[in-house]
């Protein structure tokens, strides 16, 4: 008899294979000696990688890094007080705010993007298209990640810790600075990381808000893919994939952000 968990293992392996095989294939293609997107590759060459490290590609990657950093920082700074409000206080409209804070997760970014574009045009703010509009749009799609992870780490915090600090003479600001923030910094960094990845990999929102001078890398890839999938694009795709991956690995090492995906974080 086959044990049920063996079936489960089999299914899990199949799913991961399905997820990672295309990535492996893409990475292999980028080392192809011929100008063909074929698998298995024939020969080995770094010429596509040499072509990839060209200002034409580096610029949008740097632009995306800048955009994701700004958006993640802003979403985290805005998400922090919102998470406090949602976790700590009971007020009229709390559940509505909670829904609003998470709604970008459920609404297609495409629709939000069109909406934002329409709004900017109607408001006569066409000048904003490019970085300012992109940051605004990305804050919207990044917020749920920041709010959610910070809220989880806040609600996992024993309420008595703040009371203890206050009984020892710490004012509200001091309590926040010396007790609350240090204890939820894992949640803050996790939220910021998720927000960064969300922004860095987004294209449906950027599609409407980017302009010729400010092209995030996913849009650039999208523009080029119309002319066919070349080994250069494969190399670019691998670079674009590695950046968020490395970031997540670094942050995970310091803060165990996996806790925020799978279970409540532990303190001490």
């Amino acid at each position, binding site marked *: 008899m086959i044990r049920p968990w063996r079936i489960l293992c089999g299914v899990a392996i199949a799913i991961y294979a399905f997820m990672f095989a295309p990535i492996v294939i893409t990475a292999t293609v980028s080392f192809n000696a011929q100008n063909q997107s074929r698998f298995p590759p024939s020969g080995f060459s770094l010429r596509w990688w040499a072509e990839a490290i060209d200002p034409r590609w580096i610029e949008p990657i740097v632009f995306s890094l800048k955009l994701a950093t700004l958006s993640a920082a802003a979403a985290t700074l805005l998400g922090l007080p919102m998470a406090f409000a949602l976790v700590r206080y009971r007020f009229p409209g709390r559940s509505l705010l909670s829904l609003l804070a998470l709604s970008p997760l459920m609404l297609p970014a495409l629709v939000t993007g069109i909406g934002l574009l329409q709004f900017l045009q109607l408001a006569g703010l066409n000048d904003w298209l490019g970085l300012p509009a992109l940051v605004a749009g990305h804050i919207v799609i990044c917020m749920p990640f920041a709010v959610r992870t910070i809220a989880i780490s806040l609600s996992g915090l024993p309420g008595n*810790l703040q009371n203890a600090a206050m009984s020892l003479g*710490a004012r509200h600001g001091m309590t926040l600075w010396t007790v609350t923030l240090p204890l939820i910094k894992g949640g803050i960094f996790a939220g910021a990381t998720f927000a960064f990845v969300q922004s860095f990999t987004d294209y449906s929102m950027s599609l409407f808000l980017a302009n010729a001078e400010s092209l995030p890398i996913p849009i650039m890839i999208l523009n080029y893919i119309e002319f066919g999938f070349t080994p250069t694009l494969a190399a670019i795709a691998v670079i674009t994939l590695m950046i968020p991956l490395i970031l997540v690995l670094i942050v995970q090492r310091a803060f165990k952000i996996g806790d925020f995906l799978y279970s409540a974080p532990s303190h001490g």
Partner: protein
Amino acid sequence: MADPAVELVDLHKTYGSAVAVGGINLTVEPGEFLTLLGPSGCGKTTTLSMIAGFVEPTSGSIRLGGRSVEKLPPFRRDIGLVFQDYALFPHMDVATNVGFGLRMRHVEKKEAARRVAEALELVQLGHLGNRRPAALSGGQRQRVALARALVIRPAVLLLDEPLSNLDLKLREEMRLEISAVQRRTGITTVLVTHDQGEALAVSDRIAVMRAGRVEQVGKPGEIYESPATRFVAEFIGSMNFLPGEALADAHAGQTCAVRTAHGVVEGKVASSADGIARGSSVSVAVRPERLRVVEQAPSDGLMIEAKIEQFVYLGSKTELHARSASGTLYLLEHANDGLRQSYAAGDIIRMTAAKADLLLFPDSGS
């Protein structure tokens, strides 16, 4: 005369229509150890939270050392607080935890380090300053919490069920320790607990609470020996109640004769009763350890004949559960002093009690 350390005047706290604390008047003298004792939901923790400043009273006033504090935030009240779950800061080591209050008070570094060491010494943890709270046992965390609250030399120390998370042996040890530390420092202390043994062991005075009010305030001996209400009698220790009928009118504190199924007995009317009327039904209360097994029936007074149903051997003492012909179950306790005969289930025994050990409670109301 010095102002009382803590003074609660007509203190109320209501949540909507629910009354958590329904008018408390209480005074704690400087250096006194007072315990708020009661079952869960009696308002003792709410009362402590109001003294600490985490809960705002609906009405009434709180004075600490003569100063009205009900409008002051917790960080201005000069209190030390030990929580049930200790609430140690997990991201700081023991010494930093203990020194937190001193940093908030901008105590000079050298002086602070000296006082932290002194406080850790006081709770016998001088060697554990570098540990994180997670690396400590429950008892050690408790001591750190105590040191952290004491090091700021607060006017009042508040203890919120500090021992309830410890196992029995440790709890009894910490009980003695808290009591010793309190005596050594002379700090005014208010303890909240539902554990009557703890309250009796450590307190100078106990305020027994029920449903948001104080039922009785007194020294541990007074509370146990002369409970003012039937609730206090039942809540502290065990108590036997015999139904009876008053043979005369009597005021609180007076002696009165009562007819029971086990003879006419005399007892003292409980101090909170409005008095009892002749012919009204009363309960005669007697503690299990004050019931004595006798060979010969006494000529007058209480004489209960009952059959042992259960015999519980507890090492230092023995509990007998015996039922009388009228069906009342009695609990009797005697010390295993090596002198008495042993009993077995099914034995018929005769019990009596001295007049001074009988308390009378009117049956109407509680």
